[in-house]
């Protein structure tokens, strides 16, 4: 080794390799430091709230809070025969106390999710138990005497399930499943099954909207990609305008266009095509039209960015080799545009399954998607467990699609404008 070089090393006390590694590490720390503020911001305003929401889907606090003695006593119950006297006594104590604290309604509401009619049963029993003047010889007989349903295993197993710290009730309900008195997972009766239908409706409506976007968007993207830049840039503004206008503005516009006295109906009646105005809004048709309009730019932009890089020479080569232009287009051009098709379709589909405002304002009751029910359970019936259970379902579907998107297309390929 060169003696002077060695001396320099000795002077610094470190080899060049170590120093380079240190510099690199410093750069990494600096980079991480720049990312940290946003990371922690999103952690507190986005990630933690969503995790807390998901936790509510398995959280089961009501019975443990309102009926602590029953909750504890029933843990030892094996579910084979009716619970023993201590459990009934604990129930009487808890209901008496809960009625005094005015929390009995909360417990009733929670138990009613599992078995309809449980709320009235709990409220009535609580009232009767509070009125008892003397200590009965057997709480078990006394309470069963108040209502025969306390003598059924079905009700007690519901109490036991509701008294555990965690529950799979909401997630099972979101899939139209429940546990029977033996703890086995079974389908809910057909008249109470709702959410699988909503899930399939959400997936189906999103599929239709995605296909409409593809059919309408593909030719437009192709034209934009083949026109001279000066013209295509101008036309691109027309594509981007809906992207930049408020969802509310667009939804409001569609109501004006599609309503009974709206422009479409006006034109149709003037042309004598229809005798009476058609119902175009507040139904499925209106939702499809408005959602396709709103999501079309998200289809055109990825298609356009892929098509811009497809050289026209391939098509010319195919035609010059004797291919029919239609065959050449199908065999040569379309396969090259596949990355754009998959990116556009996945993006539109991911966005479509989460839609809320457009179906809520333009659709009828039968056109509502999963998001609507999440909002409904949060605001109207205050059944937060159910809202969270459905959120798990919707988020699961979205994350699955997002992972596919990221794996095959890459989120960094996403461009806006």
């Amino acid at each position: 080794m060169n003696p002077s070089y060695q001396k320099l090393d000795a002077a610094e006390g470190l080899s060049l390799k170590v120093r380079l590694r240190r510099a690199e590490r410093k750069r990494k720390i600096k980079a991480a430091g720049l990312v940290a503020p946003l990371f922690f911001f999103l952690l507190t305003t986005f990630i933690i709230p969503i995790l807390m929401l998901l936790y509510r889907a398995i959280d089961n606090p009501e019975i443990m809070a309102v009926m602590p003695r029953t909750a504890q006593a029933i843990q030892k119950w094996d579910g084979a025969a009716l619970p023993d006297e201590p459990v009934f006594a604990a129930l009487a104590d808890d209901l008496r106390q809960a009625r005094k604290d005015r929390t009995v309604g909360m417990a009733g509401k929670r138990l009613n999710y599992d078995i309809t009619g449980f709320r009235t049963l709990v409220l009535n029993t609580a009232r009767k138990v509070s009125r008892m003047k003397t200590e009965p010889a057997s709480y078990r007989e006394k309470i069963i005497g108040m209502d025969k349903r306390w003598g059924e295993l079905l009700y007690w197993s519901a109490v036991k399930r509701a008294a555990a710290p965690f529950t799979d009730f909401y997630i099972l309900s979101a899939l139209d499943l429940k546990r029977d008195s033996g703890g086995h997972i079974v389908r809910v009766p057909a008249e109470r099954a709702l959410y699988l239908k909503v899930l399939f409706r959400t997936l189906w409506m999103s599929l239709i909207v995605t296909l409409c976007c593809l059919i309408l968007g593909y030719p437009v993207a192709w034209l934009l990609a083949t026109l001279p830049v000066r013209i295509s840039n101008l036309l691109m503004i027309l594509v981007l305008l809906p992207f930049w206008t408020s969802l509310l503005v667009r939804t409001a516009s569609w109501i004006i266009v599609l309503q009974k006295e709206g422009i479409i109906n006006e034109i149709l009646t003037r042309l004598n095509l229809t005798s009476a105005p058609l119902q175009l809004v507040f139904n499925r048709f209106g939702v499809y039209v408005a959602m396709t309009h709103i999501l079309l730019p998200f289809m055109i932009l990825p298609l356009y960015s892929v098509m811009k890089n497809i050289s026209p020479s391939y098509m010319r080569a195919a035609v010059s080799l004797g291919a029919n232009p239609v065959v050449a287009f199908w065999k040569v051009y379309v396969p090259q545009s596949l990355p754009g098709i998959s990116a556009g379709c996945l993006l539109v589909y991911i966005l479509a399954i989460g839609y809320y405002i457009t179906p809520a304002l333009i659709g009828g009751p039968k056109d509502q998607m999963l998001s609507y029910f999440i909002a409904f359970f949060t605001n109207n019936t205050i059944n937060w467990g159910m809202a969270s259970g459905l959120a798990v379902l919707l988020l699961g579907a979205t994350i699955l699609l997002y992972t596919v998107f990221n794996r095959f297309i890459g989120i960094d390929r996403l461009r806006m404008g």
Partner: protein
Amino acid sequence: MALNVYASPLEKIWYYLIRVFCVLVLIGLVLPIMVIIPISFTSDTMLTYPMPGVSLRWFKEFFSSVMWTLSMKNSFIIAGATTALATALGTLSAIGLTMANFPFKGIITGIMIMPMVVPIVITAVGIYFFFAWTGLAGTHLGMILAHTALATPFVVITVTATLQGFNRNQIRAGASLGASPGRVFFKVTLPQILPGVISGALFAFVTSFDEVVVALFIAGSEQYTLPRQMFAGIREKYNPTIAAVAAMMIVVSVALLVSVELLRRRNERLRGITQ
């Protein structure tokens, strides 16, 4: 792609058919938005064409209503603060993400894009529970923080795209000439990535300005924004004041869109992507 002189009649038909189809789709994209502008000048109380007369009565109605002017003020306050916060946070992290590889970078990048992907209702309900618990629900600050979370992905994406065309050796050059990191940032880096930063800022503004679902959950009537007020209006009584608001919001959108397009083209020119 012009039509060849030797094209067969069938090809000619296709050529025009596709163009007609595309023109119809483009009209379909823009016209439904534009119909609301003329109708906002109606003198009638109905939202139907043909209009009986032209007047500014619904704009007067808008500006004389405390409810609407308050929501306009709220919209600008919340969108303005969101823009400032999201742009600062997003730009810093875009610089960090392009600077070096560090552990879990992939996951962290994924998290930063998440607010754009997660269905808005889930975000809104999650934030609603969390903010109700922390006392931020029904405050302007709560709205600003929630909108910032939704807006940052757009800033991160646009600034990252701009940084890909930025030569990092200039930072080293600046540092070797004795400038402090802050000075290098403001004198060398920022001027060059400014178009991307401004685009990101405009995206952040429009995200907040147009947002309604989070507002639906966490805004009290004191924090109602224009879209939130429009939502209530469409549900309760749909009158031409809403069309007037929509017309003004379209003007804002067009202004923002044109600015972003001009910036994007300037950026592409500077990066030498000319076609």
